[in-house]
C-alpha cells in the first residue's frame, strides 16, 4: 500500500509550481482574460520547458502520476491552458477532450487549431461514444464564467479518441481542479487568520473553524480518491470508466461545497477579482460544467456501475466467503 505520488512526480510538481509562480501565479489567469494571446506567448513556452511534450500519461504509471502532479500544480494557479487535454495528445498534435452529449464545447478551444474529441459512453457501452476531429469556431464565449470556452465544428469522419484517452484526460482534469480546491482552502485559511472582526481573528470563531475543517477534509478525501483512480487507470481494466466517473462525480460535489465555503469565508472579498479565491472560483467553472455537470455525471456513473459493478480494490459480497475469485458486482 503506497498511496503517495512517487517522488519524481512530486519533484516535477514543485518545479512546475515555481515556474507558474514566476509567471505570476493566479495573476496570469487575470492577465489572460485581457490578453488571450498570452496563453501561447507566455504559458505554452513554460509548459514546453517543463517537458509537457515528452510526457505521455498513457505510457506508464509514473508518467500518469507525473502528469497528475503537474495538473495539480497548474490548478493551484488556475493556469489558463488546457493542460489535461494537451497531455493526452492524439499522436498528431491534437489535444484530446471529452465533450458534452449535445455539443462540441471545450475550454480554451482556440488555443490550438484542431482537437480530438469524444463523448463518454452511456449505459453499458464499453467503447467510445461519438466523436471526431474538431476545429474551433471563430472566437470564444467571452463570458465571465467561460472566457476561453468555445465550440468546435466536428468532423466525425476523423474518428473518436480511444475511451482510455478520454478517461485519462478526465482524471487529469480532476487533478487540475483538485489543485484549485486545495489552494482555495489555503487562501481561506490565510484570510481567516488575518481578518480581525469583533476584536479577534475570524479563525477564532468555531463556526469558521468548522467550515474550514469540512472543506479541508473534503479536499483530502478527494485527493485520496484521485490517487486511487490513477492506480485503477494504470491497471487498465475495462471498468476504469466506473472509477473515473466516480472521481468526477465526487469532484463536482466537493468542488461545489468547497468553493462555496472558501468564498464565503472571504466575505465580500470572495467575489472581488482582486482576491485570488474569486478568480479561482470563476476559472474552474468550465471544468465543472464540461463535459457534464454533477447530475449528468452521476447518471453516467449509474449506467457504468450497472455494467461493471463497483468493486474496485475492495472485495465484498458473499462470493468471497468461498475463497473464490472476486466476481461480485455491487448488484
Amino acid at each position, binding site marked *: *500500500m*503506497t*498511496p*503517495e*505520488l*512517487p517522488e519524481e512526480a512530486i519533484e516535477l510538481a514543485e518545479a512546475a509550481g515555481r515556474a507558474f509562480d514566476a509567471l505570476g501565479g493566479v495573476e496570469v489567469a487575470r492577465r489572460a482574460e485581457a490578453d488571450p494571446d498570452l496563453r501561447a506567448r507566455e504559458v505554452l513556452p513554460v509548459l514546453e520547458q517543463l517537458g509537457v511534450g515528452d510526457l505521455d500519461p498513457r505510457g506508464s*504509471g509514473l508518467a500518469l*502520476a507525473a502528469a497528475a502532479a503537474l495538473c495539480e500544480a497548474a490548478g493551484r494557479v488556475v493556469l489558463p491552458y488546457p493542460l489535461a487535454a494537451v497531455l493526452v495528445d492524439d499522436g498528431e498534435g491534437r489535444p484530446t477532450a471529452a465533450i458534452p452529449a449535445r455539443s462540441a464545447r471545450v475550454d480554451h478551444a482556440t488555443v490550438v487549431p484542431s482537437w480530438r474529441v469524444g463523448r463518454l459512453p452511456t449505459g453499458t457501452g464499453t467503447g467510445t461514444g461519438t466523436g471526431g476531429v474538431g476545429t474551433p469556431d471563430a472566437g470564444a464565449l467571452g463570458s465571465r464564467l467561460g472566457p476561453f470556452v468555445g465550440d468546435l465544428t466536428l468532423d466525425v469522419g476523423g474518428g473518436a479518441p480511444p475511451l482510455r484517452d478520454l478517461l485519462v484526460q478526465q482524471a487529469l482534469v480532476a487533478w487540475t481542479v483538485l489543485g484549485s480546491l486545495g489552494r482555495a*482552502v489555503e487562501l481561506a*485559511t490565510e484570510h*481567516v*487568520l488575518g481578518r480581525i472582526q469583533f476584536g479577534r481573528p475570524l*479563525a477564532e470563531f*468555531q463556526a469558521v*473553524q*468548522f467550515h*474550514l*475543517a*469540512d472543506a*479541508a*477534509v473534503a*479536499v*483530502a*478525501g*478527494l485527493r*485520496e*480518491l484521485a*490517487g*486511487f483512480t*490513477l*492506480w485503477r487507470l*494504470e491497471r487498465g481494466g475495462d471498468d476504469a470508466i466506473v472509477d473515473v466517473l*466516480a472521481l468526477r*462525480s*465526487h469532484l463536482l*460535489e466537493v468542488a461545489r461545497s468547497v468553493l462555496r465555503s472558501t468564498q464565503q469565508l472571504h466575505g465580500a472579498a470572495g467575489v472581488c477579482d482582486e482576491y485570488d479565491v474569486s478568480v479561482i472560483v470563476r476559472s474552474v467553472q468550465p471544468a465543472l460544467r464540461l463535459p457534464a455537470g454533477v*447530475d449528468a455525471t*452521476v*447518471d453516467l*456513473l*449509474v449506467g457504468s*456501475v450497472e455494467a461493471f459493478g*463497483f468493486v*474496485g*480494490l*475492495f*472485495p*465484498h*459480497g458473499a462470493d*468471497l*466467503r468461498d*475463497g473464490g475469485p472476486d466476481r*461480485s458486482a*455491487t*448488484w
Partner: protein
Amino acid sequence: MDFDLGQDAAALRVRLRRLIDQELPDGFLGAFTDDPADLAVTQAFCRLLAEQGLLTVAWPSEFGGGGGSLWDQTVVREEMWAHHEPRGAQYMGLNWVGPAIMAHGTPEQQARHLPPIAAGEVIWCQGFSEPEAGSDLASLRTRAVPVGDTSGADGWRITGQKIWTSYAGMAQWCIIAARVGPGERHEGITMFLVPADAPGIEVRPIRSMLGPHHLNEVFLDDVFAGPEAVLGELGGGWAVIRTALAHERVGIARYARCERLLSELGRELEPHWGDLPASLHAAWVRALVQVRVARLLAYRTVRAQESGGVPDVAASAARIAVTQCDQSVAEVLCSALEERCLDAGSTAPVHGAVEDHWRYAQASTVSSGTIEIQRSIVAKALLRGERL
C-alpha cells in the same frame, strides 16, 4: 502508487470470511441484541480467533500477537465490523486498551493484562466520559485520593461517576480516568486499571436506541486501586487518552459495513432495481463513492500509523468522513426499503441489518468524540499551518 493491500491481506480476508460463515449463526447482528445467546456467540468466537492467531494478528509476538502488519489488522477490523462485530464487547480491549498498555504499561501490567486480551478471555470498558465532562473530557471530576501518604505507594481511593460506558455491565476490567492532586484541566489526569467487580463500583444500564447492554452509568464510591493499577505516569493520563483515542477513532471500520449492506441490499432489490426511482439509483452510486472515500481516508490514517506517528489529526479527518458516510448510507438504505425499513428482526429485509445499522449510525457522530470535536482538531491543525 499502489493501493493493493497485498496477497497476505487478501488471504487473511478470505480466511476470516470462511470462519465467519462457519461459526456465526445466520442473521447474526452482534452481541447487543435482545437474545443473550448472541453475547455467548461473540465470546466463543473471540476464543476461536485467538486459538487461530487471528484475534491479535498485528500485536507484537512478545505480547501474544501474530506480529502481522497494520494492514492485516485493518483487514480484521473491516471484516469484523462488516459482519456486525462478532468480537462483541472485546474489540475495545483489542483495538486500543491493549495497545495503550503496550505503550504505557509496566512489564508487570503487560504480563498481567495482555495475555488474557490476546486469548479472547476478557472484556474491557473505558471510564472516560462523565455527566459534566463529555466533549470537554479534560474537565473530568472523578478523583483518586492516595491512601496513606501522598505518593500513592499504598494505593488510591477513586470516587466519581462515569457515563456512556459501553459494555460496563459485562466487563471484567475497566480503564478509568481520574484526577490526582490539585492540577486542572489536562494536569493531574491519571489512568487506572481496575477490576470491574471491585467493591464500590455500581453499574446502571441506560436505555438507548443502540439496544440492551450497551450504554451504562458507572458509579465509583471509594473504589480501591493498588499502586500497580496506575497506567503510565501519575498525572500523565492525557497522553494515554490521546493514544487511546487515536486508536479508537481509526478503530471502527464503519465504512466496511456500509459497503456490505449497500451490496447485500442491492442484491435483494435486484429483481426490482429498474422500478426504483432514478433519484435512488443516483443516491446509491453516490453512497458507494462516499464509502470509497471514507475507506481511503481511513487507510491514510493507517499509513500514518505505519510511519510511527500518533495520527490524531488524520484520524479525526477520517472519522469526520466515516461517520457522515455511516449516517448517509443508513438513509439511502432506508429509502430503498421504503416502509419495510421499519421492520426489525430476522424476517425484515437483510435479516434486520438495515434497521440495526440505522439505529447505530445515529450515535456515530457522537461516540469516541463528537464530530464537532473532530472538526476542531482538524481546524486547529490547519490554523497551525499543518496540511491534511
